[in-house]
């Protein structure tokens, strides 16, 4: 008879411990493995530096290429909506910051909740538009795998449940808060073993691309 | 007793917490709508102020805004009850206390006259009997009086 509260307590204790353990082990293992693999030594004479162009590329690739934008404006716009929305709701919401502070010992100032709320809506719309594109576009249909559906669902649910919890649209509140926490835990568990890893590896690969171009003396 | 503290210290505390209030304005709106209803259809409204989650100073601010009108009445039944017309005709503050001067109910009534001020039918019947007895006794006095009643 005490189910919703038992459920919330379970998601905030045992389930969270399991999820955090798998997430941290998985992410560090994979990053360490990728970095330790290294690259073959390039014997060709360097025509430029690696570090500067590498760092520059990490940022410059965040600006969409004009050609890509003209061909797929929707993909670019919804991609931005989703990523910025997710980033703001994940990192700038005060209850989330309190979680980081309790885990890592430091925090930062949050944004007023109406802004975070708007960001979450942006992220949800971005994700739905992405899904629609994936379903309607014949090329996307061909290249979509099970993993894509899984990753989309695992990303969508935490934002949706978070939105419902913040607006207290499900009664009782402990139930929806528990579902929110649980959905994030599912995301964390799947994270190291799916394309979600791009959250970290995107910066590695951008740096590498930039550094290679720099070494060859090509504009990055 | 907070109830009295609130009343006596209304202005300083309410000024300091001005940014905090969010229940006064919606309540005033509700009163205004209720008054409109009373004027147009004759339908009265009672708002239980104990069901409103007042913040510090909210109640004092509300009482202050409503002000004092022409009529004030005090009832003495199961403790004191004060009925005060606010500066808005038809809007009354009805404040019930028990015999220990603890507030037991606090309401805004939007009505031509609060029900409690009217003489109640049951009480009037009782009074009729009582009055009859008094008249009887006075009559007997006039007629030479019976020693038993003095």
């Amino acid at each position: 008879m005490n189910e919703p509260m038992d459920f919330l307590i379970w998601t905030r204790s045992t389930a969270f411990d399991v999820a955090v353990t798998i997430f941290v082990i998985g992410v560090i293992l994979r990053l360490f493995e990728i970095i330790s693999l290294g690259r073959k030594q390039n014997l060709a004479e360097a025509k430029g530096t690696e570090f500067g162009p590498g760092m520059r590329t990490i940022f410059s690739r965040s600006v969409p290429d004009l050609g890509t934008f003209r061909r797929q404006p929707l993909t670019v716009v919804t991609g931005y909506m989703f990523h910025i929305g997710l980033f703001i709701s994940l990192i700038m919401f005060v209850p989330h910051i309190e979680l980081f502070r309790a885990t890592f010992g430091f925090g930062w100032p949050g944004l007023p909740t109406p802004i975070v709320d708007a960001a979450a809506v942006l992220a949800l719309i971005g994700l739905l538009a992405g899904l629609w594109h994936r379903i309607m576009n014949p090329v996307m249909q061909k290249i979509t795998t099970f993993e894509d559906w899984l990753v989309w669902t695992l990303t969508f649910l935490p934002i949706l449940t978070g939105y419902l919890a913040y607006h207290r649209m499900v009664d009782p509140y402990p139930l929806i808060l528990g579902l929110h926490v649980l959905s994030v835990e599912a995301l964390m568990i799947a994270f190291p073993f799916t394309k979600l890893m791009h959250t970290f590896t995107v910066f590695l690969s951008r740096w590498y691309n930039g550094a290679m171009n720099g070494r060859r003396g090509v504009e990055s | 007793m907070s109830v009295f503290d609130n009343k006596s210290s209304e202005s300083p505390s309410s000024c300091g917490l001005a940014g905090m209030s969010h229940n006064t304005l919606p309540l005033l709106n509700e009163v205004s709508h209720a008054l409109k209803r009373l004027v147009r259809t004759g339908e009265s409204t009672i708002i239980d102020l104990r069901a409103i989650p007042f913040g510090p100073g909210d109640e004092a601010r509300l009482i202050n805004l409503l002000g004092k009108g022409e009529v004030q009445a005090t009832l003495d039944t199961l403790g004191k009850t004060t009925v005060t017309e606010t500066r808005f005709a038809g809007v009354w503050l009805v404040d019930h206390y028990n015999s220990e001067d603890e507030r037991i109910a606090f309401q805004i009534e939007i009505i031509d006259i609060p029900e409690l001020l009217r003489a109640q039918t049951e009480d009037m019947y009782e009074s009729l009997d009582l009055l009859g007895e008094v008249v009887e006794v006075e009559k007997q006095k006039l007629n030479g009086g019976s020693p038993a009643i003095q």
Partner: protein
Amino acid sequence: MAEKNTLGESLRRHGVSRRGFLKFCTATASLMALPPTMVPAIAEALEKAKRPSVIWLSFQECTGCTESLTRSHSPSVESLIFDHISLDYHHTLQAAAGEAAEAAREAAMHENKGKYILVVDGSIPLGDPGYSTIAGISNLEMLKETAKDAAAIVAVGTCAAFGGLPQANPNPTGAVSVSDIIKDKPIINVSGCPPIPTVITGVLAHFLTFGSIPDLDQYNRPKVFYGQSIHDRCYRRPFYDKGKFAETFDDEGAKAGWCLYKLGCKGPMTYNACATAKWNQGTSWPVESGHGCLGCSEPRFWDAGGFYNALSVPISDNSQTVAFAAAAGLALGAAAAGLNYKNKDEATKAHGTVTIDDLEKSS
């Protein structure tokens, strides 16, 4: 003992006028958190209401619930109701002791069979009956015996309603709530540690007035009192929405009355009437006095994380988990790297050199 007289008759006998009765009904409506439009219905019901017998059983409890209740009444509307309730057994408040006390309980049960209200505070130990007994009778046995002929059961306080403090991890006595044991009677849970006194009396007043139990939520708590969360009714809510939080109990934010979420307020998950009913004759309530809500009216609130940790903070200490997991990740990563190097090495070693002559030979 229960009387045959109705409340209306008894009030009139005490010389209470119709105005006084209406005032009493108004206060009762306010107490039960019912709208003032219900006053005529309440007046009609109270006119006919009979004096019920109440048996109050105290099990694994701290008497805080009884303290809360008795503090609520100097002669007030609650006490008028209590004058009208026959409290036939309450081992803290009754004059009788020992066998006379138990005899009073048995007599009340016998005379009001099927009609009395059973009020319970405290949880019931299932681990070993010896943890809590009254007159040599185990709590479990006494509850079952007394509940059998009750019209309804009111579980007062979080211990009786959900298990409460005695049930907190690791629950040494095997404490359970009333509803874990009694399945065949209507149970009203009046949770809180302690519950708000006017809520206890409001529930009893409802039963007295209408002879029925009020609308209940999924935890069997009366919706009129537990229908909304502390967070929803909190006058500090606008600060939560604006993102203005007190960081410590004495900073400028705390002095300005900002939201207490970061200081551990459990208001968002807690359903209770504190914001309207308030405490100490309506003086204040925890959030108004500058302390976050502990969530005391919710099941397992003792195990729901530190009182001064934000609700979003995980219950167990995660810094350690993260550190251990990071170390394990590094170790496993190193192992994986070693494996990869070995593979690479073997591949290099297996790599034979092919000359132009070899190619010509094979073709």
